[in-house]
């Protein structure tokens, strides 16, 4: 990668980050500001204690800046305050009130900012994914995309809301305490700060060096978890082969190994913790001893000494955290790249002059050819037409291109220029706005997908404001009514994830009801009764036939009974239309249709027994 490309890439990454930060930038600023204020307030209270010890109680000469002394004089001077310590105590309480208010604002604004950021990231990613072309979805694995949308987004959030803000907070504290400590005694400040790089460096070193150890643990926990999962899903296989003992030994071995990794890591971690404790203890010892020496030499007063120790101990934890924070920051870079991959994929797009004509007229395929990416041709020079309100039947084997034809009609895959045209009502569908076209075409897919909502919500999902009567009517037309009514909660039954609580046939019927509710002028049934039993199949067919003539219907099936009443039937073979005509014409045409007709009608029945 050249320098220029790298710079370009960085610019893009920053642009994406800024896009995500829209709406939360202000909140982040508020949170940073309040963090700084809280740190400042935190630094004030040791000064009050110092003044109380040295000046108010100790009666020593005060060394505060003039503006501070003016306030003190207004309150009656240190001598008066020494007699009335409640005033100083009140000052402590007031400063504390300011501090905790700032901390509160920091916490709330920081959460609001980071959650807004997460929300923006999730919403943007989700919306983008929904608008990505279908071919993109076929190319990318679900699990991988979900991981990018969940854990990578979380990593980004932690980076901004925890690592960045914390590092900022710690730096502010460092600078402020450095100022306060310097103002009291410079050499002691130097003594206090010299060991700090060692402490930070040690923590940074540890967290970088043993990152692999933690990753190993995670990975082996994953393995153990998978092992348990596989044992549970494969419980029948385990029992049937009588391998309980084997499974137990296998699990115990992995469990032991995983535990061993943690034990080993535990030793390293404990050593790190205790060493850090000793390092910071030594640093405190240095400050305590040198402070005492400086006091005796008269460089410092007792109150200053106490304040100094307070500042020093305030810094201890943040300093120890800093190393870890820095070590963990590198994760975020990988995550943003992974999210960027999704965001960089182009969305489905219509030409700017896309139109919204009435979708009613004839459907014409004119010399249509199509191949999926890196695959042999799926459709070869397909031409046919169907009149508005007619019913078209399509017969063909697996891989003959039936479904592909429908995907093209619905613009799930774009038809390349020069590979023929598909027109609806005389308009090339390339010119029609995609959502407009799809809204007028109802498809029942081969493998229907139901959403994890109630059955009635599923049926009415594509048309807002459908009343219960229409839902029930659609369910009845799809022969789903009796099934639904047998459920305890009826139409309010919740369909489990991917519709697990319904059988294949029930799902197909729910999908049919869903399409019927939309009442689109074009309806496509792509082999949608394959999992339904014979009797129900016949019933649904009869109810569909009542709708013939009101909408253009396309039926894909390899059952003659389903196709027979269509106005026109196409027989597809290897991406080509090899026969077309009505049932009566085709059943005597001596082609594929006739053979299948004979297989499925009584003619051939006796032969097979």
């Amino acid at each position, binding site marked *: 990668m050249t320098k220029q490309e790298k710079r370009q890439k960085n610019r893009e990454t920053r642009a994406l980050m800024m896009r995500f930060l829209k709406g939360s930038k202000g909140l982040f600023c508020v949170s940073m500001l309040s963090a700084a204020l809280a740190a400042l307030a935190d630094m004030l209270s040791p000064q009050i204690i110092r003044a109380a010890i040295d000046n108010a109680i100790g009666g020593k000469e005060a060394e505060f800046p003039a503006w501070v002394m003016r306030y003190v004089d207004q309150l009656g001077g240190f001598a008066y305050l020494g007699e009335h310590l409640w005033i100083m105590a009140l000052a402590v309480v007031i400063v504390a009130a300011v501090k*905790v*208010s700032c901390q509160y604002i920091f*916490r709330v604004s920081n959460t609001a900012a980071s959650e807004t950021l997460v929300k923006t990231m*999730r*919403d943007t990613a989700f919306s983008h994914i929904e608008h990505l072309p279908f071919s993109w979805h076929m190319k990318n694995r679900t699990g991988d995309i979900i991981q990018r949308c969940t854990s990578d987004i979380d990593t980004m959030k932690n980076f901004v809301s925890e690592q960045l803000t914390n590092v900022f907070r710690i730096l502010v504290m460092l600078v402020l305490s450095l100022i306060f400590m310097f103002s009291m005694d410079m050499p002691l400040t130097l003594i206090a700060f010299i060991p700090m790089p060692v402490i930070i460096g040690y923590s940074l070193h540890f967290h970088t060096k043993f990152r692999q150890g933690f990753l190993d643990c995670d990975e082996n926990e994953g393995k153990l978890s998978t092992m348990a999962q596989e044992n549970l899903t494969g419980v029948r296989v385990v029992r049937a082969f009588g391998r309980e003992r084997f499974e*137990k030994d296998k699990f115990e071995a992995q469990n032991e190994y995983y535990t061993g990794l943690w034990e080993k890591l535990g030793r390293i971690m404990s050593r790190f913790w205790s060493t850090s404790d000793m390092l910071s203890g030594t640093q405190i010892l240095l400050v305590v001893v040198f402070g005492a020496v400086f006091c005796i030499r008269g460089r410092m007063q007792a109150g200053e000494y106490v304040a100094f120790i307070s500042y020093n101990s305030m810094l201890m934890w943040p300093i120890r955290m800093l190393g870890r924070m820095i070590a963990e920051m590198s994760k975020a870079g990988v995550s943003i790249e992974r999210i960027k991959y999704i965001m960089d994929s182009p969305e489905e797009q219509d030409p700017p002059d896309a139109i919204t004509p009435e979708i009613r007229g004839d459907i014409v395929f004119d010399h249509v050819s199509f191949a999926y990416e890196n695959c042999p041709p799926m459709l070869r020079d397909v031409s046919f037409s169907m009149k508005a309100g007619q019913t078209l039947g399509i017969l063909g084997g697996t891989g003959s291109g039936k479904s592909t034809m429908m995907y093209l009609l619905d613009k799930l895959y774009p038809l390349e220029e020069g590979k023929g045209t598909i027109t609806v009502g005389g308009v090339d569908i390339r010119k029609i706005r995609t959502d407009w076209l799809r809204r007028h075409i109802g498809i029942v897919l081969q493998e229907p997908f139901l959403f994890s909502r109630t059955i009635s919500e599923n049926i009415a999902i594509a048309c807002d404001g459908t009343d219960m009567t229409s839902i029930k009517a659609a369910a009845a037309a799809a022969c789903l009514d009796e099934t639904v009514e047998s459920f305890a909660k009826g139409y309010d039954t919740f369909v489990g994830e991917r519709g697990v609580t319904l*059988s294949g046939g029930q799902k197909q019927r729910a999908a049919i009801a869903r399409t019927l509710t939309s009442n689109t002028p074009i309806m496509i049934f792509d082999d949608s009764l394959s*999992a339904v039993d014979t009797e129900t199949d016949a019933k649904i067919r009869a109810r569909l036939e009542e709708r013939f003539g009101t909408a253009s219907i396309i039926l894909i099936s390899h059952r003659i009974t389903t196709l027979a009443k269509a106005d026109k039937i196409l027989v597809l073979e290897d991406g080509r239309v090899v026969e077309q005509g009505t049932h009566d014409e085709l059943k005597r045409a001596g082609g594929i249709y006739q053979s299948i007709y004979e297989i499925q009608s009584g003619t051939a029945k006796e032969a097979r027994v």
Partner: protein
Amino acid sequence: MNKASENKSSLKFFGIGKMLPFLKKYRGMMAMMVLFGICGSAIDIGTPLLQRYALNHFVGLGTLDTIVPFILIYVGVILFTGVTNYFSALYSLWMEVRLDRDLRNAAFEHLQTLSFSYFNQNSVGYIHARIMSDTSRIGMLFSWTIIDSVWQGAYVIGAIVAMLIVNAKLALLVLAILPLLVVLFSIFQKKLVHINREIREINSKITGNFNEGITGAKTVKTLVIEDRIEHDFKSETDNMLRRSVRAARLRGVFAATMNFASSLALAIVLWRGGFIARSEVGTFSMFMSYAQGMMEPIRWLVDAVFDFVTTQVNIERLTKLLETKPDVNDSAEVVAIYGDSFEPKKENWESLKGDVEFRDVSFKYPDGDEYILEHFDLKIPFGTNVAIVGETGAGKSTLANLVCRFYEPTAGSVLIDGRDARERSQLWLHSAIGYVLQTPHLFSGTVRENLLYAKPDATDEEIERALKLVSADEVVARLEKGLETDVGEGGDMLSTGEKQLISFARAILADPRILVLDEATASVDTITEQKIQRAIDTIIRGRTSIVIAHRLSTVRDADIILVVKDGRIIEQGRHDELLAAHGHYYRLYTRQYEDEATSAFLSKKA
């Protein structure tokens, strides 16, 4: 499982009693943990004393006479800190991971003995969470929560005692804040637990929505409901934002209260104890340290109490799993002769011939109330092929479950070689029965490991032969590393058809006398379909087989066909008899025949 009953607790003392058997082993370690915790706490209490000495003696008196011993003692304390902190951390961590391990092992082992009814009533996700997450919550409780309580508790007590000794009146004033604080913390904590649970639930819902939006992309597009789905997604993320901010407010107030309380304690010390500084600055500063430093440990203690309360649910759920008794049990006499599932006594095992008989069997599933079989009689002599046919969801697997003794008859008995199946151990039966699933299940690992699952001591020749018999050798030949190829989690690196063939080879390798086979309906390409068909013909030959059948060829040649509808056997006989009867079988068969012939015809043309 309903939530209300899960949250209601029935165990005493947070369910700790139930965990005692697991903890017993670690008595020594826990004692060390507590000991080092107290030591660590003692150092925390002692450090302000050292600083007090430095202030009072060096600064107050202006002398450095004892500086060398002071430094030595201080260094000693630092080293001691290192040692105690090392061991308390190490023992806590070891305690945690070891207890985790033991609990996981116990849960896993017990699950290997539980009956199928348990697996049917509880989802894999639910059981998995018991093995993995409940155990880890419990592990945390008995390590970190305990050491925290000991450490912080000791610190609070030590600090109170020290303050009382130095100045009882001032100490009591500071302590007056505590009860108020404890009450406040408890209220906050309760709310926090609640809101945190809500946030977790919303979060998993959002992940679910992502999943749905991605797997359902095609449907979303065809229905043009992108906007609607997005809108619903946003309302969920809005909800998440609102809840999170509310939780942050709560946590903010919580933290603010704590920080304010410690400043309040400081103010009290300054106001009422400022005079001490006149004589002893060190004592004054020490008092400040204790008064301020006590608040954080108090919060930890409240946290710990809540950990005990919330983890109780985990203990309950895990205990419930461990105490679940299997429905199918080998009697003590049987175990005495044949051994149990983990320690078989193979020397006492008779070989299995392969006769199966249902004698007056009535059956209903433990969680159902309708009888599926009533007074059912059927003799299946060795070598008989039984086919069970019916539509999806008609209840075809019941007989297979009974033969495998995954369930036992409610009344009557299943006889294996003329003897009641219950007279011999489950493992004995399972070792002699082959079982091939509708959805083939492979374990992660190599192809070889999966094959050896059936017969751990199989030779390479045996493996070759088994693969060849079901034409799975071609599958293996195509794989890059042959038998050593990793099949991925659940065998997902292979196609469904390939998995099927491998699972056939696995069954053949075991060479069972009785074979139960659940044919797949999954669509595979024609060539694979033919291979599978041939493979099935091969593996059922020469065995007693019970096939849940979807393929005509398997059904047609069966010796006995059982036709199942709505969970009951409605027809029984040979193919031609049933066809002639023009009943349910006739209809099923006709449709199936037409479908198969049509696909065969269409694919032949292509």
